[in-house]
């Protein structure tokens, strides 16, 4: 006889684990199915985990969780071929409790987090692929796994199966994503002595720094590179819309090499030793790419629901919030003993009323705007660099003349209008 659980969660990443943890703590009989050897073994993250959403689940988690460094400085680098315009914020308040965010290594962190769900009472089965949802009379009633006699049943199935959510797609919740709805990110972990990291990034022990790099890091196409400090390693990566790689016929790993050898970046990573190379898709389609996330007996969370704020590099925190809200909706449905879409829809309503829905709506046009008008990256970043170089090079030219030259450099009156319009439009999609 096939087994029946109250809830089955597919995927033990941040969304699935948050959901399973919340349910298990409330005494719900929950099964978590993970296809990797262990939770985190199929997951990749640039490396920044925000504290708040995690702490809502496990207070003071950072005292025992495998976190790397609390971030005290966030830098932004507008990169040209031989120069960079950099700005950032460093605040020591981020180095103290309650902290803002941490660098983490996902394979370690996800294992720890999933163990917490297991301690709370969830059952975790690794090395198991969910092949399809079992649907009876239009309602999802369980899952079919790749194990022998692998059918398992539940009142609700939560899909937390990531950016490649074959399950949500097979339920008809969304069509295949387009190349302009996903970013392909490749990265490396580089081992480097603790002391060298702290010296190079101007940090004290147990302080971290992140650098987001725009412009020449992606050869002018839409995307970013990043460089984050772990305890004894650096994460360096680059991600661009898949459509951009296709259009420009770029090999992602060659772009990563380009970034690593860029004269503005190379000094940070010199002497380091490579530990791992990783690639992953990020669902960056935003609000307009969100699939249907509620059905009879089924909810969709995290990356599978396209819950990523690419502008602010947020994703795992949104995944956690969605997992918790899904768990709460399931608990309410259990009270009513009704697992239809009508009842479970409270998940969607709460999610869209949370910061997740608000932020996705705020930036609903942002990625597509910058994708459609590549000159923000291709032209304006080099232009900013030239202007800075002009102003800061002391060569006996009066500053007013330098300003005039910068103004001329912007082009004809028509081109200046175009720049003004672009700036206005950028403000509009970001406001």
């Amino acid at each position, binding site marked *: 006889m096939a087994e029946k659980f109250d809830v089955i969660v597919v995927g033990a990443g941040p969304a699935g684990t948050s959901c399973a943890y919340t349910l298990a703590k409330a005494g719900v009989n929950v099964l978590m199915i993970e296809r990797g050897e262990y939770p985190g*073994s199929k997951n990749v993250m640039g490396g920044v985990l925000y504290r708040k959403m995690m702490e809502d689940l496990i207070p003071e988690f950072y005292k025992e969780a495998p976190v790397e460094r609390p971030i005290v400085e966030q830098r932004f680098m507008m990169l040209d071929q031989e120069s960079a315009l950099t700005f950032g914020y460093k605040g020591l308040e981020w180095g103290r409790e309650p902290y803002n965010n941490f660098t983490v290594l996902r394979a370690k962190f996800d294992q720890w987090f999933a163990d917490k769900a297991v301690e709370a009472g969830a059952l975790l089965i*690794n090395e198991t692929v969910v092949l399809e949802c079992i649907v009876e009379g239009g309602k999802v009633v369980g899952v079919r796994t790749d194990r022998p006699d692998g059918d398992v049943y539940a009142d609700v199935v939560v899909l937390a199966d990531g950016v490649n959510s074959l399950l949500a797609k097979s339920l008809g919740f969304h069509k295949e994503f387009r190349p302009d709805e996903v970013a392909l990110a490749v990265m490396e*972990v580089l081992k480097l002595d603790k002391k060298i990291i702290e010296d190079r990034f101007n940090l004290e022990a147990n302080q971290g720094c992140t650098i987001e790099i725009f412009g020449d890091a992606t050869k002018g196409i839409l995307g970013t590179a990043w460089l984050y400090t772990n305890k004894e390693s650096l*994460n360096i990566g680059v991600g661009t819309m898949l459509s951009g*790689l*296709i259009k420009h016929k770029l*090999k992602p790993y060659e772009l990563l090499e380009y970034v690593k050898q860029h004269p503005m970046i190379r000094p940070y990573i010199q002497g380091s030793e490579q530990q*791992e190379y990783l*690639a992953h898709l990020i669902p960056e389609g935003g609000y307009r790419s969100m699939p249907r996330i509620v059905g009879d007996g089924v909810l969709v969370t995290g990356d599978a629901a396209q819950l990523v704020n690419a502008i602010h590099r947020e994703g795992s925190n949104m995944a956690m919030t969605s997992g918790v809200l899904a768990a709460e909706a399931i608990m309410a449905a259990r009270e009513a003993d009704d697992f239809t879409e009508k009842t479970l829809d409270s998940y969607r309503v709460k999610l869209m009323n949370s910061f997740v829905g608000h932020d996705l709506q705020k930036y609903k046009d942002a990625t597509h705007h910058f994708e459609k008008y590549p000159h923000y990256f291709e032209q304006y970043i080099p232009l900013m660099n030239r202007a800075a170089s002009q102003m800061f090079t002391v060569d006996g030219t009066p500053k007013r003349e330098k300003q005039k030259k910068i103004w001329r450099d912007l082009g004809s009156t028509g081109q200046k209008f175009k720049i003004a319009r672009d700036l206005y439009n950028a403000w509009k999609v970001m406001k």
Partner: protein
Amino acid sequence: MSDQPKGQSIEEKQYLVRFKADTRSHLHVLDYDICATKCPDKICTIFCPAEVYKWEDVRMHVGYEGCHECGSCRIGCPHQNIKWEYPKGGHGIIFRLA
């Protein structure tokens, strides 16, 4: 700049990664003729982050053993000519760090 080192090849990067390959492929080119006749760019051979796809003379070779399971080929193939599945449970790529 001519003195800039060429950088590391994808083969060298792939050596850093742990894989537990299944004996059967989870990636299938649906129609090899389409790659040969309708896809001059063979763009999957370019954007795949693990160079799983290689055009060898007349046929697309799929080195599924080194796949990162990112899904790009399924989404990026201009002819929707790739059937993409998850490798069998516990198999495929095993990330250890980030």
